[in-house]
């Protein structure tokens, strides 16, 4: 059984029908990419999964639990975390405190927190250097690291990343993608939303293409990379 499974999800903003029947699966251990144009509904999909938005109909099963009616904070406890679009670190909390908030679900289990922190610092040594700096004073790239690191602090089974490469220099994008692969190697399943379709498809095992609230195309990432339509529409080739 898949780790995460969406069945015919419909989400609305008031009268705006943003997701029109999304069904998708994320298998344990994989990296799954969700690509699509601006406004296709990628962020909405992630926010629906993490409980920030409530779908009007459809079901979401995570690790055997139905979560489509569950409050967001309880979903995190099941091992599903979400690094939101645009980083969104807590600006007036220090790096350390930001990470501690990521480990909020671990309660006062000092050892586990310490161990996770070490793991995150290993992935992002920059964060350790700046652990007493305020989140808001980090550079954009560092904030992205912090956002991802924070989402890893609770040792999730599934990590959802919303455009981790947004606004980063090409070098840094490469590094972040490397890190995502490394995170996946450590056993974390990843659901990755990306504008940068080529990089995402290269990294992912499986991918979905979202168009105005519906899944237009899906398949193993390698196949999509070769698909005529994808190449035209998302990889900028003619």
């Amino acid at each position, binding site marked *: 059984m898949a780790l995460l499974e969406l069945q015919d999800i419909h989400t609305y903003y008031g009268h705006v029908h943003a997701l029109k029947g999304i069904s998708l699966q994320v298998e344990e251990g994989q990296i799954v990419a969700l690509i699509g144009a601006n406004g296709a509904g990628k962020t909405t999909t992630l926010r629906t999964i993490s409980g920030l938005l409530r779908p009007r109909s459809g079901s979401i099963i995570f690790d055997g639990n139905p979560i489509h009616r569950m409050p967001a904070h309880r979903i995190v406890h099941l091992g599903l975390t979400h690094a939101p679009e645009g980083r969104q670190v807590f600006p007036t909390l220090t790096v350390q405190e930001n990470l*501690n908030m990521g480990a909020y679900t671990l309660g006062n289990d000092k050892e586990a927190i310490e161990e996770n922190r070490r793991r995150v610092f290993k992935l992002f040594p920059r964060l350790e250097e700046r652990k007493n700096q305020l989140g808001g004073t980090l550079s954009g790239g560092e904030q992205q690291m912090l956002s991802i690191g924070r989402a890893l602090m609770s040792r999730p089974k599934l990590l959802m990343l919303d455009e981790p490469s947004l606004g980063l220099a090409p070098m840094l994008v490469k590094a972040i993608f490397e890190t995502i692969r490394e995170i996946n190697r450590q056993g974390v399943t990843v659901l990755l939303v990306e504008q940068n379709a080529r990089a995402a498809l290269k990294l992912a095992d499986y991918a979905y293409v979202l168009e105005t609230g519906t899944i237009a195309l899906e398949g193993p990432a390698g196949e999509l990379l070769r698909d005529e339509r994808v190449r035209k529409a998302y990889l900028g080739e003619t």
Partner: protein
Amino acid sequence: MEKFLQQLINGLTIGGFYALVALGYTMVYGVLKLINFAHGDMFMWGTLVGWALLAALVAPLAGMDLVAILITSVVVMGVIGAVGVTIERVAYRPLRKAGRLSPVISALGAAFVLEALARNATEARVKVYPQNLLENLPSIPLIGGVSLSGLQLLMLITCVLLMVGLYAFVQRTRIGTAMRAVSLDHDVSRLMGINVDQIITLVFFIGPALGGIGGVLVGLYYRSFDFTLGWIFGLKAFIAAILGGIGNIPGAVLGGFVLGIVETMATAYGGAGASAWKDAIAYILLIIILIARPTGILGETVAEKV
């Protein structure tokens, strides 16, 4: 000089009360961006419950004033905290997503209800705190003829301890950090697994509980009160919170002391008319400070998303 020092001490004491009540405003504003207009009346209910309890306790605990006051304070904290939590549930939570006007009306409505209840509970009369409480505390002579009464010292210590305790809680503990996170962004806090509603409930317990203690202290200090105390004192405490920069705990404390001292000094040195204008001092100070520094003394100068 003597007069000045004496007034400074009085101002500090009163400022401590303002600060204590201002904390509740500032914390609620932090997590909900809501002016909790009912806070002043919860503070007044602290005075009221404190008065009722002390009146009942002085006889059985004769000679043990401190114990009576301690018991009173603890019970008042619990009761007023519970009132705060109830008000949040009933009057504010249903309006979380309802824009900015409706919660203001609801808050004012809650304040009116609390005030009407107190008016009827006290039969709209001035109530007097038990006499002679703590009167044999030694007063501490300072330079010249100035002295710090034992009561004042006790109150200052209480205020400072509570404030330092709160600050340490918010800065050092996991829950306190979560409180700061919630005041920055509800959604991201949820993504951390923080139960935002629970944190808000906690804030609505701690704030009014501190306000309630403030109410007891004010009752002990001024010896009498009536049901209108909450509105005026509450408004001034809110002004103190703004003076310091709302949403900011040290700011509330600073604002409280600044207001207490300025008010006392202005009344003492302002000549004959000053005491009639005493209540206007806070408002004038507020306007001056906001014109000069729109985010308050310690408020962040960076534009805030509101």
